């Protein structure tokens, strides 16, 4: 044992200091290196391989795209002589095929869906009621909904009937042209083996197919269901898969429309894509894949939910498809290739 508290001689002391400096240097370099070079993220949610559509399946090409005058659009519809009607914020704008601004109706509150009859009467679905305007834009009626919790998200106008899809009460109300409710379609009813709609977000939609049946999307069950005007469940098709032929995510499709020849166009959110199915539900081709909606695909994560994302589509008499991108408030006009 050293007899006396002698100072550590210089060599020993420097040895200790050098050793500790080396350890410090090594570990700090390791930590800095690890951060800079951006190693792969083990927790990444990777669906990039589903966001690329096989080019052979894409049968439509974009003709043009133009902005719509208001933000926060919800639905679009085709009226007589191919005029386009977009409901956004508290306005309904009528636009020509080329994006010309025509009429603008101001509603009493934010609109969630719109439909236009052959004679030009405009039906605007607000949250809990429907406002009816004549072709000139004068409000002629206001149809209250039977239930305060109603949330209209889809409208379809036939010869004598107006169908309104309610995402909260999970029912499609059938009105006659005077506004009286004459029928309820789609309510869960085992006797008539109606499965019942599952709608986690406000995207229930209804269209009148040329074959005389209604087509309603059932997003929670990933299928499109056909009903008669009186509510009899006829058929259902569609399967939940992220691959191109199915409906992706938790609740798709979110919008339906029909080509003049009866084929059905479906729109999906999460992976924004518009596809063509034949009337019986066979997948036929893709109108536009996720690559053509970069901001929309990216928006759901930025907006931190998909309720305020999504797309809608409408078809004019010549079969040209107008796709409304809700996130960028733009309409793209697509024409069949070749």
């Amino acid at each position, binding site marked *: 044992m050293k007899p006396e508290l002698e100072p550590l001689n210089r060599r020993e002391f420097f040895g200790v200091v050098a050793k500790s400096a080396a350890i410090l240097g090594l570990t700090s370099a390791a930590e800095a290196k690890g951060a800079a070079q951006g190693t792969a993220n*083990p927790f990444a*949610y990777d669906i990039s391989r589903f966001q690329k559509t096989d080019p052979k399946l894409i049968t439509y090409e974009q003709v043009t795209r133009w902005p719509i005058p208001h933000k926060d659009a919800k639905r679009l519809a085709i009226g007589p002589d191919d005029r386009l009607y977009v409901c956004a914020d508290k306005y309904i704008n009528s636009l020509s095929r080329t994006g010309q601004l025509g009429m603008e109706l101001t509603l009493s509150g934010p609109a969630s869906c719109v439909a236009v009859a052959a004679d030009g009467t405009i039906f605007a679905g607000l949250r809990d009621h429907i406002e009816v305007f004549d072709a000139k834009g004068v409000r002629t009626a206001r149809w209250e909904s039977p239930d305060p919790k109603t949330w209209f998200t889809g409208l379809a106008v036939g010869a004598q009937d107006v169908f309104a899809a309610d995402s909260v009460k999970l029912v499609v109300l059938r009105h006659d042209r005077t506004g009286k409710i004459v029928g309820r379609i789609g309510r869960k009813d085992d006797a008539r083996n109606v499965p019942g709609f599952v709608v986690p977000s406000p995207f229930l939609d209804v269209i009148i197919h040329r074959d005389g049946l209604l087509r309603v999307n059932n997003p929670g*069950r990933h299928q499109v269901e056909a009903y008669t005007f009186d509510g009899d469940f006829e058929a259902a098709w569609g399967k939940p898969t992220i691959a191109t032929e199915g409906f992706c995510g938790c*609740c798709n499709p979110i919008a339906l429309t029909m080509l003049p020849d009866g084929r059905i166009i479906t729109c999906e959110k999460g992976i924004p894509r518009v596809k063509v199915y034949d009337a019986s539900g066979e997948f036929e081709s893709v109108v536009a894949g996720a690559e053509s909606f970069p901001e929309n695909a990216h928006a759901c*994560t930025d907006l931190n*939910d998909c309720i305020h994302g999504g797309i809608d589509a409408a078809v004019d008499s010549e079969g040209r498809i107008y796709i409304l991108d809700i996130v960028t408030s733009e309409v793209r006009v697509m024409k069949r290739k070749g």
Partner: protein
Amino acid sequence: MDAKPHEPLSRRQFLRNGARLMTMTGLGAAAGVLSTRSTGAAWVWQIDPAKCLHCGNCATKCVLEQSAVKCVHTYAVCGYCQLCTGFFAPEPNELTTAAENQLCPTAAIKRTYVEDPYYQYSIDEQLCIGCAKCVEGCNRFGNGSLFLQIRHDRCLNCNECAISRTCPGDAFRRVPVEHPYLLKTTSR
């Protein structure tokens, strides 16, 4: 005390008293300025769900072995879907709770049947490591009811949060200790 009273105030003593007085006034001034602004509240760290980019740093950068950041579920925004994109992997084999179908690496999400066709998803905080895979899945397709929050029964409230330094979305900020959470009440 050792300062002998009769000793005349030596020059160094005088310097010391001067320095002491000056420092005391300086500290008093600084304390005065700061205490007028201080609200007496103390701060704790929290994540702003709107800014979180679900990058997974919360699972690895916290000083605690098992991160104090957990996933939190706003049931009122949830759609109770049968195919929940926060629970199931992007291409689930079948809609069961088997390991191969689950997205969560530590099986921390419990899926319980409520009634046809609804299922409830709840987070087991013992297992959750705060990796935000389920948050990304839910936000990308669904209503965005899953989000990350610092759990203050676990958080040591370090003076500088080790995760906040590396957060790509600049989502960490100090919140008063009485309201330590930034919960997502609406779908926003």
